[in-house]
């Protein structure tokens, strides 16, 4: 799975949690909070993305992520080292 595919997985899960974003053109520098996700939504998007990728990592490793591009990047890197 390449980085773009991981990004698409994240977007798919964002759209499931925030259905009103369906059709929105997501950018790497979009922040979940700015997209309308509250703290529970953000936790849900992360958990669902990890499940989709079958990636078991401590959540603390995602704590420095500041936008969805970085989230996809960290998940991609973890997938490579898994």
């Amino acid at each position: 799975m390449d980085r773009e595919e991981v990004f698409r997985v994240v977007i798919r899960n964002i759209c499931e949690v925030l259905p009103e974003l369906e059709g929105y053109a997501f950018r790497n520098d979009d922040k979940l909070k700015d997209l309308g996700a509250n703290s529970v939504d953000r936790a849900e998007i992360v958990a669902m993305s990890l499940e989709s990728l079958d990636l078991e990592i401590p959540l603390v490793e995602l704590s420095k992520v500041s936008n969805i591009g970085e989230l996809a990047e960290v998940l991609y890197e973890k997938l490579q080292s898994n």
Partner: protein
Amino acid sequence: MKNYNQTKLVITGIGITSAIGQGKTAFTQALMQGQSSFGIMKRQGRQKNTSFIGAEISELYIPESISKRVLRTATFTEQAAMAALYEAWEEAKLGEVDAERVGLIVGGSNFQQREIMQIYGSYADKASFIRPTYGLSFMDSDVCGLCTEQFGIKGLAYTVGGASASGQLAIIQAVQAVWSGQVDVCIAIGALMDLSYLECHALRALGAMGSDRYADEPSSACRPFDKNHNGFIYGEACGVVVIERADYAKMREVKPYAAISGYGMAMDANRNPNPSYDGEVRAVKKALEQACLTAADIDYINPHGTGSAIGDETELKALKDCGLSHAYINATKSVTGHGLSAAGAVEVIATMLQMKESRLHPTKNLEEPIDSSFNWVKGEAVAHTIKNAISLSMGFGGINTAICLQSY
């Protein structure tokens, strides 16, 4: 305990969702026609190599104001609660009431077992992926959180558990919240009890849920007070009522369905599912006393009537000895099935809708009543204008409640 609190309370809004119909119009129509919807239940997680009979909601219509985003994480019980609450809310014009003066009591506990069972099934082997929202939804009080958020309720909200008397208990708590002045309006919800196959097994093993005697003829299985009864038959439902002071309703120009003239509650000091004649008599007498009524004043009884052999027999003996065998009596559960935590609220609603229609619904499958000395409404609806009604609920653990409703 007489009704020393002279403040008259009324019910000004009703919301209902059930297997026989969603909304008052559909529900009333099905009730009056005795149109039940029993079958072998099919909802995911409710059967496992089993064929339990029950009545399930075929399709839940969700109000447009509830967003897809909210619905994604709402359990089935929560979706039913929001749908029924919306109906009652609109009818009672609660949008016009100061949000801080509105309360919400949710009747029931452990009512989301099927959903929880499914989550266990999905995540038992991958617990670290569990959806964070499960941390909210596994608690019954999430229904309070979700409903108060969606409807902007800011007074009070909590759950009360009393097994199959939960719906009536919620109404009693709502009455107390208004009487005490904590809020001006209080909503009571009888929550949808979402059984998994494990609860169905256990309830049948207890001897409470009906056997598979009628597996080939599910519509005949639910037969409260009939000689061939052999246990309750489950039915999905959620009922909502809005309670407020009569003067407040008048000021707001909302039309009451009925007045709540009294209630009674009595315990049997018994943890088990078996009923108690003594407890039921005490609950009825307390309700009548608080309503300042005698048994002779009651002209309609909405009994608990589940179809359990010992439950039906005990209830009729209690009613008879309370001097109530003259009043009309039918069994709502014969049409709706037993909603467990929802039942008490659903049956208070059924009573008020019959009051409004001046008609009493038939009792399905009542071919040979176990006691023919009562004034049964059997296979056909009967024209009758209710003046004073009493509705009973009993719950496992020795809980007995009764509510008196007066035409208004």
